[in-house]
C-alpha cells in the first residue's frame, strides 16, 4: 500500500464519498446521482462491466473503498459519452470514470494487468516523451505487450490492415527509428512535470 493510500484510509474511514469528492476529477458530482440506472442502460459496454456506473456511485456512497478502487469497471469506459448525454441529473459520468481510474492508479490500487490501464500507461509514456504520439512504436509495443510470440501472432493477424495503411501512407515504418516529436518538446515536459507536482501537492494536502 502506498503511503498516500494508507493516509486516505486513515483519514476517511467512514466517508469514502468525501475522499472521492476531494481527489477524483468531478468527484463532487457522485452524491447527485439519483440511481435511475439510465447510465448503466446506455453504456454500450454496460453488460461487460462488473459494476456499471450507477452501481459504482452507489458503492462509493456505501463506503466500499477497496472494491471500487480495485475494480476493473471504470477502466472499461471508452469515452463514448452516451451516459453523459442521457443522465437526467447531468453527471459528467465519463469524466468521473476516468477520474476514478486515475485516482486508483495514483494510489497504486488499480488492477495491474488490466489491458486498458497498460495501454493508457504506454500511451502516456509515448506522448509525454516527444509531445507527439509515435504511432509505429505505440502499436508495436501494444502488440508485443503480452510477450514475443503473442506479438508476432497479433502482428500477422493485422498484416493486411498494416499493408493497406502503408499503401495509403497512413503508416510510416521509419517511425521505428526516427521520430521528430513536437517543436517545444522540452517545454511540454516541463509543463507536465509542473502539473504533476501540483497534483501531488494537492493530494498530499488531503492525504496529510
Amino acid at each position, binding site marked *: 500500500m502506498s503511503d498516500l493510500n494508507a493516509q486516505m484510509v486513515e483519514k476517511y474511514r*467512514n*466517508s469514502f*464519498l468525501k475522499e472521492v469528492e476531494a481527489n477524483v476529477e468531478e468527484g463532487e458530482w457522485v*452524491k*447527485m446521482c*439519483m*440511481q435511475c440506472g439510465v447510465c448503466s442502460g446506455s453504456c454500450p459496454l454496460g453488460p461487460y462491466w462488473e459494476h456499471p456506473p*450507477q*452501481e459504482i456511485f*452507489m*458503492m462509493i*456512497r*456505501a463506503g*466500499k473503498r477497496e472494491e471500487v478502487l480495485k475494480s476493473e469497471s471504470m477502466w472499461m469506459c471508452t469515452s463514448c459519452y452516451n451516459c453523459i448525454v442521457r443522465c437526467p*441529473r447531468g453527471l459528467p459520468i465519463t469524466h468521473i470514470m476516468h477520474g476514478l481510474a486515475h485516482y486508483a492508479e495514483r494510489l497504486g490500487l488499480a488492477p495491474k494487468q488490466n489491458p486498458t490501464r497498460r495501454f493508457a500507461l504506454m500511451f502516456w509514456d509515448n506522448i509525454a516523451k516527444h509531445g507527439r504520439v509515435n504511432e509505429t512504436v505505440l502499436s508495436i509495443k501494444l502488440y508485443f505487450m503480452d510477450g514475443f510470440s503473442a506479438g508476432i501472432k497479433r502482428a500477422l493477424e493485422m498484416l493486411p490492415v498494416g499493408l493497406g495503411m502503408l499503401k495509403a501512407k497512413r503508416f510510416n515504418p521509419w517511425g521505428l527509428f526516427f521520430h521528430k516529436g513536437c517543436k517545444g518538446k522540452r517545454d511540454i515536459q516541463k509543463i507536465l512535470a509542473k502539473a504533476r507536482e501540483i497534483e501531488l501537492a494537492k493530494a498530499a494536502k488531503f492525504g496529510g
Partner: protein
Amino acid sequence: MSDVKIGAYICKGCGLGDRLDTAALAKIAEREGKAAFAKEHDFLCSEAGVAMIREDIEKEGVNRVVIAACSRRAKTDAFAFDGDGVAVSRANLREGVIWARPDTEEARETTQEMAEDYVRMACAEVRYMTPPQPNPEAQTNRRILVVGGGVSGMTAALEAAKAGYEVTIVEKSGALGGWAAKLHRRVPDHAPYADPQETGVEAMIQSVEADPRIEVVLNARITRTSGAPGRFSADITTESGQTRTENFGAIIQASGFIPYDASKLPELGYGKTPDVVTQLELEELVRQAGGGPVKRPSDGKEVRSVVFVQCAGQRSDKEGHLPYCSGFCCTASIKQAMYFKDQNPDIDTTILYTDLRTPGYLEDFYRSGQRKGVIFTKGVASEVKPANGGGAVVHFKDLILDEDVQVEADLVVLATGMIPNSGVDIEKPEKREGQSDEDYQKALEEARVRMGLNPGEESVLNLQYRQGPDLPKLRYGFADSHFICFPYETRRTGIYATGPVRRPMDITQAMEDAVGATLKAIQALENAGKGRAAHPRVGDLSYPSFRRDGCTQCKRCTVECPFGAIDEDEERYPVFNESRCRRCGTCMGACPVRVISFENYSVDTVGQQIKAVDIPDEFSEKPRILVLACENDAYPALDMAAQNGIHYSPFVRIVPVRCLGSVNTIWVTDALNSGYDGVILMGCQKGENYQCHFVKGSEMAHYRMGKIGDSLEQLQLEVERVQTYEVAITDIERAPRLINEMEQLIEKIGMSPFKF
C-alpha cells in the same frame, strides 16, 4: 297541455339543406309532430335565425321550441331559449344524421328516414316537457361551516372570508393549527426549494383570529347536521356539553388525519428503544434542541448519525400496514435530514428508500438534500434492533448492490403515514336475514378495503341523512370524491372534503386543496340560493318530484339515490331535498310505479320519443335499434365519431339520457313491445374506478338491466337484443362499432316479431 304551442325550426346550413329534404321534415313536424308551424332557415344559429325564433316566442306565443339542426351540445348559447315558460328540444340532424352517414345516392333514403324520426322525436319530447321553475324553497345562507382547524380548515376559512363569506371553524382540540403546528419547519413551497422554511402556522392562526368574519369554536364537535345546501343546520357541542344550533349554506370538512400508530412496527424497533422515533417525534426533539445539537433520547448523547426509514408500515400489503403512499413523508425526511446537516455537516444522514417521491419542484429540494450531503440509499429495511450502548442497528437490503447489510445510527426515524379522519363507515355491513355466510364475509372484506385503518369510531358530521352520518368512503377510509372528473365533489352535495381527509397530502397541497373546496362551497351555496343545481348539471333548474298518491313507499328511490338527497317523512313517503339533488334521475329510473319525474325530463319525455319513431314492418329489412346514451360520455363520443367521419348504421335512434341510472326499464320493455329489434344502453365506467358523473348511476343501470332477462323471456325475445355497455368519452371508434354490431346481430337472429 292546452297551452302548448310548438314552433319547429329546421336548419338548412352546415350541409343539412343539401343532404336532406328539409321541406319534408317541416311537413312531418307539422302533421305528425303537431307543431303549430315549422320553418326552414338557411342558417338557424345566425343572428337572423335566432331573432326569428325569439320573435315567434314573443309575438306568436310559441312556448315549445324544436331546433332541428346540430347536436344539443353545439350552439348552446344561440339556442338558449329555455326558461321563462319556454322549453327547447333539439333534433340532432347534423352530428346524429348527415355526418354519421355517407353522402351517397343509396344512403339517401335511410338518411332521410333517420332525420324524419329525429324530428318526430323532438316534437314528442318537447310536448311533454314543462319549462322548469326555480325551486320555491330555495334559500340563501352565506355562512360556511368549516369542520377542523388545521392548515386545510384555516386556509378554507381565510379564503372564504376574503371572498366575503362568514365562516365558523369548529375544532375539536383546544387550539388551531393541527399537526402542522407541531412541526419545527416545513418543506419549502417556493423557489429555490433549497431549505426548510418556517411553517407559517402561527401567522395563519393570527390572521384567523383577527378576521371579523371568522368565528372559531374550540374544544367542540358537530353533534348533528341536517338540511341541504343553502339551509344546513348544525349542532355545535362544546366539551362542557353546551350545544348551540347554527345555520349554514355549505360545509367544508377538513377533519384531517390521524398519524399511523408506529407501535404496530416492532420489527422496525419502535418501542424497543427510544432511539427509534417517528417523523413527528423527531420534530419535537428538534424543537427541544432549540437550534443546538439534537440529543439521543436514550442517553442524551449528541446525535452523530441518523437513518431515515422510508415507507415504514406503508405501501405494503401486510396486515396492519397502509397499502398506499402517504406522499408527504419522502420530502419530510429530506427536510429532517437537513435539520442535521444544516446544524453540522459532519453528521451522517442516510435516507433509506425504495422510490423517492418528490413531486413537482420538490425535485429541487431533493437535489438540495444531495448537495448538502444527505446520503440516499435505495434499500428496504427488514429489521431495526437496539444497539449496545444506545442507538440502533438497521438491517436492510441494498437494492442496487443487491446485498444484505446493516448500519448503526444514533437515531432511526420512521417515515410513517397518514390515516384519514373521516368518521364512521356508513355502509357498515350488518348480517342480513337470509344472507349466506360467504356473502357476509365478502361484505366484511369490502368494508375492510373501504375503511382501511380508519378507526371509524366517531362520526365527524353526524348527518341526519337516511344514508348515514358521514361522507361515503371508497377506499382506505378516505372521503370519496369523484377522482377522475370532480375531485372535490363528495357524494353529499354542498359538503366538501378537503385536505388529508380526502387523500394523503402535504401542507402545500392541502392549502391548494382548501382553496378549491372553498370555491366549491361558495358555488354550492350561491346556486342553492337560486334554486339551481351546482354540479354537474350547473344551473339546472329542474328537480325531481313525485306523485304522492301513486307512490307505494317502496323506498327504492331513497336507497338508490347516490347522493343521499332523499329522506323519508313520518309516513315513509320520500322527501326530496332538491338542493342536495344532482339531477341525475337515478330515482326516476328506480321507481317501479314511475311516479318520479322532472319538469323537463320524465318517463314521458323519453317514452314518447321512443314511441314517435316510425317502425317499418318486418319485411322492410329496416330494423330499428334504440340507443339510450349517457349525455356526459357516450353521447359526446358518438357526436365526435360523426365529426371524425365515422359512419354507423342508419337504423339506430339515439336518445340522450342524463345518466344511465335514470333509465327506467319500462322504456326498454316498451321499445321491445313496440317493435324495436334491439336496445343498447351506453353508460360510463362503473365500479371502484367509476367514471360515472353520478357515481352509482351506471352501476344501478347495469344491475337493473341484469334483471331484464325475465321480461325478455316473457316476450320470447332473445336476450342479446338488449346490451348494456360501459362507454368512455374517448370511445369514438368503439361506440359506433357497438351500434354496427347490433345491426349485424339482428341480421343474424332476425327482426323482432313485434312490429304492428
